[in-house]
């Protein structure tokens, strides 16, 4: 019989009640992948898009050519930043459950992405984050109080009450405003990088999307423009295996890696163990060097796992095994870096416990300060007049009139 076409429906390896199965993930041994010179032409390093750059082995030993030049102080800073991100997330998740904020999204299990990549970039480099990059904000010096106040939409909210929780920005820290729309920031990063090249500056841009968002047209526009103009940009795909309920196969991850998406355009792709802070740092540093030296864009796929729900509106127990994360072969990024530092004699379980307690205390103190600027239900509120500001640079007549109408209504009802 002649074979017939049949609609292929991608299937995740396990559903609730089944044994987690990550056999679909192709892994390389730590230290196995060679590190090419950053000036190697894209056509000679296509292997990097299919293999996986890993530095830390299962015992926490750093191996191979990608071991980055990071002293213990820097590694301890990375550990601290990752732990702070996780503790902040846990606290915000809890206050959402208590009804204090309307919504939240954790980056549980993905902390090495923001911290490792952020540390490999320079302060003047511009970051275009997705909604799960809170670590970038923390690393770039955004105070947790400010981030909490944004989530609270209170009188100190950087967005003046206009955005849902987690849609931060940090103008001074060179972190762009987060959009709720998916992948829209990718072409912005390319455009920012094009401007840097037009102006002859050596700052580069970086942006992040999830595996699911690679299906959006903006992802493809960004790759095309980055390739055509050889823009100094690092484009990152955080492959955390799940886009709400659809596994990464629905974004086209079944047959080739996400890192390979750029190969057809001549953009080098690097697939990296996204839970290995040393490897994440090393490949980002490599891509940054390429961008700064005029060798154009790099597409990095960071293989990780979304440890929590998509958001506080989501219930993942409906569509994936409950214990899937604990079977994920790349483990937990914080545990792995901790193990490495303990093995090397730079850290101990006691110190880790102390640090955890210290950070929890400081996040608790930050929360107390943040709510003193008001919550959704109590304390001071933003001035409602400000609702009409910033629609345009100068508020036009019809908006001034609407502001007056609202004032009159509120005056008459109180």
């Amino acid at each position, binding site marked *: 019989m002649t074979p017939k076409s049949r609609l292929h429906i991608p299937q995740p390896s396990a559903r609730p009640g089944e044994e987690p199965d990550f056999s679909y993930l192709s892994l390389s041994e730590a230290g196995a992948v060679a590190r090419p010179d950053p000036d190697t032409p894209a056509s000679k390093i296509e292997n990097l898009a299919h293999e996986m750059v890993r530095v830390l082995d299962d015992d926490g030993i750093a191996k191979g050519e990608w071991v980055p030049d990071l002293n213990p102080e820097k590694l301890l800073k990375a550990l601290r930043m990752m732990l702070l991100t996780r503790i902040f997330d846990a606290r915000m998740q809890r206050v959402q459950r208590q009804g204090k904020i309307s919504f939240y999204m954790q980056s549980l299990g993905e902390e090495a992405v923001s911290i490792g990549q952020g540390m490999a970039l320079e302060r003047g480099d511009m970051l275009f984050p997705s909604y799960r990059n809170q670590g970038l904000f923390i690393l770039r010096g955004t105070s947790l109080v400010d981030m909490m106040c944004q989530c609270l939409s209170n009188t100190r909210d950087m967005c003046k009450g206009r*955005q*849902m929780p987690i849609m931060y920005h940090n103008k001074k820290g060179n972190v762009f405003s987060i959009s709720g*729309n998916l992948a829209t920031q990718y072409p912005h990063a390319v455009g920012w990088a094009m401007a840097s090249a037009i102006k002859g500056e050596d700052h580069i841009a970086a942006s992040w999307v999830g595996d699911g968002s690679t299906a959006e047209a*903006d992802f493809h526009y960004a790759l095309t423009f980055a390739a055509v103009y050889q823009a100094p940009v690092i484009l990152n795909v955080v492959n955390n295996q799940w886009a709400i309920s659809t596994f990464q196969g629905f*974004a086209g991850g079944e047959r080739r890696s996400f890192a390979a998406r750029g190969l057809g355009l001549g953009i080098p792709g690097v697939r990296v163990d996204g839970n290995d802070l040393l490897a994440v740092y090393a490949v980002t540093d490599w891509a940054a060097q390429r961008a700064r030296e005029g060798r154009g864009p790099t597409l990095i796929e960071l293989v990780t796992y979304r440890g929590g729900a998509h958001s506080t509106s989501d219930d993942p127990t409906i569509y994936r095994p409950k214990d899937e994360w604990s079977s994920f072969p790349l483990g937990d990024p914080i545990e792995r870096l901790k193990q490495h530092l303990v093995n090397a004699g730079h850290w101990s379980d006691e110190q880790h416990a102390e640090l955890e307690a210290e950070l929890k205390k400081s996040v608790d103190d930050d929360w107390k300060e943040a709510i003193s600027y008001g919550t959704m239900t109590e304390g001071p509120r933003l001035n409602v007049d400000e609702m009409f500001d910033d629609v345009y640079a100068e508020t036009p007549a019809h908006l001034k009139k609407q502001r007056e109408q609202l004032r009159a209504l509120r005056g008459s009802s109180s």
Partner: protein
Amino acid sequence: MSQMSMIKAINSALDIMMQKDPTVVILGEDVGYFGGVFRCTSGLQAKYGEHRVIDAPIAEGGIIGSAIGIGTNGLRPVAEIQFADYIYPGMDQILSELARLRYRSGGEFFSPVTVRTPCGGGIRGGQTHSQSPEAVFTHLSGIVTVMPSNPYDAKGLLISAIESDDPVVFFEPKRIYSGPFDGDPDKPAVSWSSHPGGEVPEGHYTVPLGKAAVIEQGSDLSIVTYGTMVHVVQAAVRKSGVSADIIDVRTLAPLDIDTLRESVEKTGRCLIAHEATRFCGYGAELVATVQEECFYHLEAPIGRVAGWDTPYPHAFEWEYFPGQDRVLAGISSIMESV
């Protein structure tokens, strides 16, 4: 008859149409195994299989573009866009392709796509989960634009939309998915079980496209509205004591002009209420139409109550939302005109 929420009514319409017509297929983000983030497609993949309830990549342009192709090859696609705020990557496919395919091919090609999408505010969704972009679609010739205000209409209109050979953009006001909402966020939520619109037949029935409903009869004023605002207007009218016709437009385009004309010729006064921004909003078309059709019957300028012309602010959701106080102010202003 049984009691249904709007979610259940939509689910029932989809179920009945998939049962009745093997060419009906559903596609969208998270619609399959998961059953949709608002649960509107819950259970349908298990019942009809993965080839008829299809999980899609996160690509609204891809969902609508491929739905058009599926529709040109003999199937009848119902596409879900997870939030109306995310429909814009599909805009070119809707505007340049879906709306015009019949016209540009001399009536030979068409694609009977229904695009379902939740819209509107009131769920603390901020600027990216609260928009009411209906006027963007009513402006396109060739698209039928629908927004129901209760479960009964939602089911009957959705069945009509799926059966229609014209493309339909079907807006579902998510604030009233679970129960009617009169604009007061401090009141406890009510379910559809205590509302006549929550009485829904189990089987197949239709509510015709292109027909408005006069849901309350009065003599002094016609209030034209749709979606969530229907309930806000009803509550405000009760408070005001005015005797008003309340017209639920239901199908925004093509518009049921006759029902509007009859009502305004009777009352001589007209107020338009919608949640979307005011400037170039759908209300502007309603005002122009009523003015053209009923000018010599009008005793007062036509009034408009709408969202402010700003993005939907997270912190000021209830100052933004055109609640009962704004409707009451609109009613007073028209009734006080000599």
